C-alpha cells in the first residue's frame, strides 16, 4: 500500500506526532510505502532543527529526518502554516528578508497542493491531530 500521512500537531505538545511516527514506522516495517508525511497547523514545528529536547527524551525532529533519509519518505511542511509560525528554509528566509533559516534536514517547505496530491496518489491518507 502507498500511504500518505497528515500531522496536524506540534512535537512534544501533543501525542499526534508520536503516533504518526510509530504508525509510519510500522507501515515501513511491513513493507508498505510511505509516500509523504505532510505537516500542517502546528505540525510544521516538527521540522525545526533548533529544538533541543532533554537528553533522556526522544528527539522527534531527528526521528523524522532519519526516516526521510533511510526510507526516502517525502517530509513536506506547509508553506502557509510555516510562514505564520516562523519556519523557514534558506530560500524562504531570503525572500522574506529574515536573518536565518531553521528547517531540519530531510524536510522541505511546499504548498498545500502537496497534501491534495498525496490524497490523490496514495491508497490511504491517515490523519493525526487534535
Amino acid at each position, binding site marked *: 500500500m502507498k*500511504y500518505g500521512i497528515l500531522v496536524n500537531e506540534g512535537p512534544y505538545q501533543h501525542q*499526534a506526532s508520536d*503516533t504518526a511516527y510509530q*504508525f509510519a514506522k510500522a507501515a515501513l*516495517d*511491513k513493507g*508498505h510505502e510511505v509516500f509523504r508525511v505532510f505537516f500542517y497547523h502546528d505540525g510544521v514545528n516538527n521540522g525545526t532543527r533548533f529544538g533541543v529536547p532533554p537528553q533522556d527524551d526522544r528527539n522527534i525532529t531527528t526521528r523524522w529526518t532519519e526516516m526521510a533519509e533511510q526510507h526516502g519518505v517525502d517530509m513536506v511542511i506547509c508553506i502557509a502554516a510555516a510562514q505564520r509560525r516562523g519556519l523557514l528554509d534558506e530560500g524562504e528566509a531570503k525572500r522574506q528578508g529574515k536573518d536565518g533559516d531553521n528547517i531540519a534536514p530531510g524536510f522541505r517547505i511546499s504548498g498545500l497542493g502537496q497534501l491534495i496530491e498525496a490524497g490523490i496518489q496514495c491508497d*490511504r491518507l491517515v*490523519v493525526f491531530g487534535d
Partner: protein
Amino acid sequence: MSMLHTVNKSPFERNTLASCLGHAKAGSDILLIEDGVYASVRGTSHEDMVRSAVGQHNVFVLGPDLLARGMNPEQLIEGIAVVDYGDFVDLTAKHDKVQAWL
C-alpha cells in the same frame, strides 16, 4: 466500501467518541488511540455507550497507549481487542478509508 474510525479523545473531555459512534455505520471498525483508550475499560460512566458500540462494531484499543496510561488490559470491556501499531496499519489497509475523529 468500508471505513476505519480512529478516536483519540477521552470521552470525559470531548464528545468525539459519541460523535464517531453517531456516524459510524454498523460493521465499520473503531480504533481507540491516545486519550481515546480511557473509554475502553469497565466501570466508567461511558461504559454503556461503549458496550453498545461493541455490539455493532469491531472495537480495538491501541495497546501501547493503554499501557502507557497505567490501564490494565484485564479491565477492558469484553469484546474490545488490544492491537499494536502493526495491527493499526493492517486495519487501515483492510478498510478503503480512514476517518480520524479528533
